[in-house]
């Protein structure tokens, strides 16, 4: 933990240092550049506005619409002035408008400086000419395409490395899940940037109409498409958030309907299962479905008569037949919603056991969906540590989980996630146990009972 922290600090420090050196170096080149204040102001203005349009991408990072202006600047003004455009825009939009911490702002500005200088070098060496972009087939077109792609790769990589150092997980997985969404976004914006570059270098906007009108057209060419793109992305993102919240609310309502249920159980299971899934580096969409399944895994209990749910389990060898139906009922409640089918499968299978002795279908080993295996583990852990009945301490619960691996649980899942489970308990306190259980009662809790939650 401490080591990772130190790595992150060292990484951020190195990037910021590199950024400062890069800025200084490009200032020294300034003498040879022929550039008006008006051009710079236009690019800085556009970049500052677009830098506020940020959308999150899978894998933990975020991308900004200023990509379009950076790319345009790179191929029309050259890398040296563009690093200053980027720095000023980032400091304006993140430091002044959004008031983010200075280190963060400096990091974001610096990694853009480094990528721009790197891509500028690539562009020139591939035969790209600054200020004379030519789209006819030939080396210039190749340079433009490669430049756009390397800018996308580098910008995504810097941030993903930082996220990896902060939150752990494999770099390659994180990168591959971040690059896809960033490609759609950056690709659309690279197209806008290319258009800006072409219009700008044609000086067309200065002919015929007064120059402020030309500037307006140029600004509109960048702002309207980027704004529309941003609006659509934001709408999609906000709806996903609302959706998740609705599921949580409805899940907890259904939970409240079940007599003897533990309030907050679904939410805790969802949180833990999603963390375990993240640790297993599953794809983001699957993690989302596991989270949904966590909220909803016991909703089928509304269909089970409350007399059965509350019966003292000590008197039963197994679980009553009717209670066993809850997994299936839960899945059928979700069946009209096609989007939730993966989650419904997990709900249906969350009482299956690795050894095939679970219910409802008695699936074995890898026939059980992976999400359901993760869910079963989280459900069992939360059931042991948070229930009305005497609870176990986290350490005892983990010991039990380990004992039950290969009988109840997927040994691989248990093996890979127990560390993260321990870390969750040690540091985050998110799933900390309720007050230590009375030791005298604990002896009554047999293994089956504790795990049957």
């Amino acid at each position, binding site marked *: 933990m401490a080591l990772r922290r130190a790595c992150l600090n060292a990484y951020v420090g190195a990037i910021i240092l590199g950024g400062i050196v890069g800025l200084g170096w490009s200032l020294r080149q300034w003498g040879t550049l022929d550039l008006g204040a008006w051009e710079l102001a236009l690019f800085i203005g556009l970049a500052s506005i677009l830098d506020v349009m940020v959308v999150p991408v899978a894998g933990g990072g975020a991308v900004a619409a200023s990509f379009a202006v950076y790319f345009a600047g790179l191929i029309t003004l050259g890398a040296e002035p563009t690093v200053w455009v980027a720095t000023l825009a980032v400091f304006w939009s993140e430091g002044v408008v959004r008031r983010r911490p200075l280190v963060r702002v400096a990091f974001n500005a610096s990694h853009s400086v480094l990528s721009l200088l790197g891509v500028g070098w690539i562009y020139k060496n591939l035969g790209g000419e600054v200020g004379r972009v030519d*789209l006819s087939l030939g080396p210039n077109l190749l340079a433009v395409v490669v430049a756009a792609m390397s800018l996308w790769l580098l910008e995504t990589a810097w941030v993903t490395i930082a996220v990896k150092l902060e939150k752990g997980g494999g770099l390659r997985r994180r990168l591959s899940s971040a690059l896809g969404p960033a490609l*759609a976004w950056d*690709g*659309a*914006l690279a*197209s*806008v940037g*290319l*258009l800006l570059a*072409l*219009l700008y270098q*044609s000086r*067309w906007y200065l*002919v*015929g*109409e007064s120059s402020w*009108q030309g500037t*307006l*057209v140029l600004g*509109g*060419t960048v702002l*309207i*498409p980027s704004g*529309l*793109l941003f*609006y*659509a*992305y934001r*709408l*999609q993102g906000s*709806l996903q958030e*609302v*959706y998740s*919240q*609705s*599921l949580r*609310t*409805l899940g907890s*309502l*259904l939970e*409240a*309907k079940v*007599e003897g249920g533990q309030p907050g159980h679904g939410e805790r299971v969802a949180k833990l299962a999603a963390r375990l899934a993240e640790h297993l580096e599953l794809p983001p969409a699957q993690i989302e479905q596991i989270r949904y399944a966590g909220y*909803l895994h016991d*909703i089928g209990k*509304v*269909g*089970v*008569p409350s007399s059965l749910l509350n019966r003292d389990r000590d008197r039963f060898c197994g679980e009553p037949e*009717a209670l066993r*139906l809850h997994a299936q009922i839960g899945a*059928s*409640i*979700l*069946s*009209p*919603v*096609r*989007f*939730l089918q993966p989650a419904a499968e997990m709900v249906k299978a969350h009482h299956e056991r690795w050894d095939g002795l679970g219910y409802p279908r008695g699936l074995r080993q890898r026939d059980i969906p992976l999400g359901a295996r993760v869910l079963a583990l989280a459900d069992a852990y939360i059931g042991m540590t948070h229930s009305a009945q005497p609870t176990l301490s986290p350490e005892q619960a983990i010991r039990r989980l380990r004992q039950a691996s290969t009988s109840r649980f997927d040994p691989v899942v248990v093996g890979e996630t127990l560390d993260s489970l321990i870390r969750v308990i040690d540091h985050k306190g998110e799933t900390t146990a309720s007050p230590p259980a009375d030791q005298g009662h604990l002896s009554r809790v047999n293994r089956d009972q504790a795990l049957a939650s």
Partner: protein
Amino acid sequence: MNQAMSGRNPTLRHYLIVIGAVGWVVLIWLSVERWGRGVSLELLWDAGFFLGLAILVGLQPVRMSRGATTTVGFAVDYASLVIFGPAVAAWIGVLSFAVLLRQSSWVKKFFNTGQVILSFAGAGYVYEALGGQYVDLTAERVAFGQLGLALIACGLTSYTISTLLISVAVSILERRSVWEVWGVIFRWTPVRFLALAPFGLLMAMVYQAPGLGVVAVALLLVPLIGARYAFHGAMEMLEVHRETVWALSNALEAYDPYTRNHSELVTRYALAIGQEMELTAPRLEILEWACRLHDIGKCRQDWESIIRKPGRPSDREWEIIRQHPIEGGRLAEKMEFLPHTAGEVARIVRAHHERLDGSGYPDGQKGEQISLEARVLGVADAFEAMTARRAYKARRSVEEALEELRRCAGTQFDPRAVEALESLWERGELDVEPSVEQTPMREGLASGVIPAKMSEAAGGAG
């Protein structure tokens, strides 16, 4: 336009054919006039490029709520109109339709092409009348900066003509007022128009850049398609959200013999009343959400024991009962998703036990203070409670229930809503279906009786 259109409706058929015929006559006239000004190979080349764009964006429709679809094609249409003029733009529209609407019947195709032609012709007429110029037909560069009014009027005209012509067709088919249909099918119209019109204009502007032309237009299209994908995802999320809330709120009631099907029936009655009272489509949708969620505040473990206990509720129990609309409003707020319904569903849920004379709860609102939707919901709720056949009480006949509602109209219930319900009943349009009789729980489980699909009811209501 995706609504199923039956060719058996003669009025509709005549309407479709007339619009189609008028459209084609106008197109021939426009083409002859345009031919007189000369047609170059270059023009055909660029128009072909725009035709390709129109087909490309037309192939990727965005599914909107309630089965309607839309595309981002308006931007391309608009650009081709101010670049080439109405004749060429109309041909682009007609030919792209020929490719895109291959499956539909010839009457539908005929109408759709006519509709497109008329909207281009009308928009072109307005544009020229206000001093607008077409890029293709002017020697020097068109200064779009000085044509603001003409451009806006042109876009609005084209949009209004085409959406209205479609709405009339749907309104004939569904026997509803044109405005109502317009509201349902084109509810995202303002957003779409505001987003796409500037985009189209931008396309026309960059098309004029020397040496760029169609390349610049193509570059602009990439972000447009990107936005279309994100917007499509958002629309799907809306639909999924609705399905999910329906399914889960249904499950909340399904296994409770006292409330089973209650919300579904209340929704049906309230929507019938709302339609009778001619509420607009967006208001009906808000009402539908409120009906689905109106009793969600009752989801607590001690609710049934309080309600079923004989005798008067104690002060504390009464407090809990009065609390349920407040709790329901709070929960409904958490589930709202559309920017334009912000808080409205929650307000209706909160107010559904208010009475006109101010004796209701939780806020003691009076008369017009209570929103119309909440009053409609109140009537539907009471009506369902009286006519439902429940295990613990006898069911009242519909006449008795209406009598009771009439007695309390003006003090407790909204008289207009009660009237609407009565006239629906008299005309035999009220489909009163008593709540499904209580099935013993075990039997229900064994036979795998699971909550019915809510989405069907939702679809039927629209």
